[in-house]
């Protein structure tokens, strides 16, 4: 273990014939060992990285944040159109049937609802498109304000100030019989 001044890798001289046989054995071992390691490593690495290469988020030169919200593809009511004031965002939390890995459950999901008229409403996911911090509606500012880096958005979800690179994320929505329904979030949003 003591450090000697010898150059690294110095070794006694071995007869040439023995050395070439040794080199052959070592190389053969490296090849066989490498193959064995690959047989184990490839499925392990593929399993571990599957969520990466299966990602539904499109490859973008300028990647943006992805909202962390648990997803659902069902239509879920967020209440009657008449219960909302036109142009004034309201935060509501609705129960949705979500799939979270191996868990299927009914989970509370928060959304900002902005009624436009009797037949239309925009429903926003409440996460900033900068880094995903929670967006609260500030009536005084007339905008959604992010507490992390000062980003803000107007009632149409367009950026007003701060670093967010794109508008707020909207749910697929429909109004049926005076009731507002939300569907899926856009894939990769």
């Amino acid at each position, binding site marked *: 273990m003591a450090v000697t001044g010898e150059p690294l890798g110095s070794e006694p001289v071995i007869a040439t014939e023995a050395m070439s046989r040794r080199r052959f054995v070592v190389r053969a071992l490296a090849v066989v060992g490498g193959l064995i390691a690959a047989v184990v490593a490839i499925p392990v690495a593929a399993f571990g990285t599957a969520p990466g290469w299966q990602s539904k988020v499109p490859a973008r030169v300028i*990647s*943006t944040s992805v909202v962390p919200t*648990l*997803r659902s593809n069902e239509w879920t009511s967020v209440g009657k159109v008449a219960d909302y004031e036109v142009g004034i965002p309201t*935060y509501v939390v609705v129960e949705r049937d979500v799939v979270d890995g191996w868990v299927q459950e009914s989970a509370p999901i928060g959304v900002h609802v902005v009624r436009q008229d009797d037949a239309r409403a925009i429903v926003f996911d409440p996460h900033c498109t900068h880094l995903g*911090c929670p967006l609260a509606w*500030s009536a005084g*500012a007339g905008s959604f304000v992010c507490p992390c880096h000062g980003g803000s958005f107007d009632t149409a979800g367009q950026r007003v100030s701060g670093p967010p690179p794109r508008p707020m994320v909207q749910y697929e929505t429909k109004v049926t019989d005076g009731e507002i329904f939300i569907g899926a979030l856009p*894939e990769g949003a």
Partner: protein
Amino acid sequence: MRRIGAWFDERLGVYSVVTGFLDRRIPGNIGWFHTLGSATLFLLVVQIVTGIALSLSYVPSPDHAYESILYIDQTPFGALVRGVHHWSAGLLVLCLGLHTLRVFIWGAYRYPRELSWMIGAFLFLVVLGFAFTGYLLPWDQKAYWATVVGTNIAGSAPIIGGAVIGLLRGGEQLGAVTLARFYGIHVWVLPAALLVLVGIHLFGVVRQGIAASPRTKPLVEPDPELDRRENYEREHEAEKAIGKPFWAAIFKDVVVAAVVLAIVFALALVVGATLEAPANPNSTDYVPRPEWYFLDMFQLLWYFTGEQEPLLIFLIFTIGAAVFVLVPFLDRGRARHPRQRPIAMALVSVTVVAVVGLTYLGATGTPAGVVTVPPTEGMTDQELRGLTVYNEQGCTACHQIHGVGGHTGPDLSRAGFRWEEADIRRQIVTPKNEKMPAYDGLSQEQLDDLVTFLISLK
């Protein structure tokens, strides 16, 4: 005792190895600064031991993670073990940072220790990975929101950003899969990487010997006839000749380890490991803030805006990490003494000032959680109503009053002294600065109350 020892040594033959290790000569001037490396190693061991203990009662599932932490805290010594794990993690980052700084200033990454530096740099990144994945495990508010932000920062990588988010979160969303992945990475993937890298790092330290303290003039004049290795050997042998045996240097390491342990235990017992409210993905009034060692990066994100911003973040962090790892190849001079390396010293000073400054700004900015400015004595009813408007409208996100609030906008602690009433009113409703949203939706009464409150601050 002696006979038992002899019995074992006959079978293991380890005695000569240990004495050889202890008696090997090291250069002189190996002092207190060199204990930073051993303190880091010591804290890593503490992390592993306490981490194994915590894993006995922790469940990585959103349904049970928070409750299992509460359970740990109620179990005898549970709160202490968790506190030690938490605080030694923070101290580990600090010791590791100082150890890195020491090695840089000493120029100890020079030939033949380039690989030790690179392995060390990767170890630094692994430790940050530990911190990032460890954070989520309690599944409290801080954990959840810091992970939302952290995974999104990692996901700002061009082209592969989406894949990176998928890889980290186990999908687009942040939930059960994410927690299980973070746990697996925290307790299996990173420790495996850590053991391999620490093994190589320490092997390098023993094999190459500890680098001598830098000298402005070498002990032995380099001989141009000899090659680099031979010249290095002559110099290092000369250093060792006037040096000391390794055992003579260990005492300082033990002292520092004991002090570090005392600090960790004191913090664990007095302050304990924090646990916020359970993670609530639907709270809109929570202000996410990372642990102190990520505050500098978090604060940096204030200063970039626009569509190119994610690309800039990615480039800064990636280039920063690459430069860090490749230091021995970017700085190829021969001199090791700081006085002979003015550019390297200037760059490291700028880095240290930037890290400390950004951390300070982040730490004194808006704290995590729901931030409100408290009322003070002697305020009129209208001023109190104004304060309520101030807190409700989220002014604290960007403005500070007597140390409470953010740094983006001007400090309002003495607003009434600095500005006229009319100017304040105009600035609120029609701000000149693009960074501030126009608060033109306030009622006349709210605006009057708010302005009255602000001009009362002198």
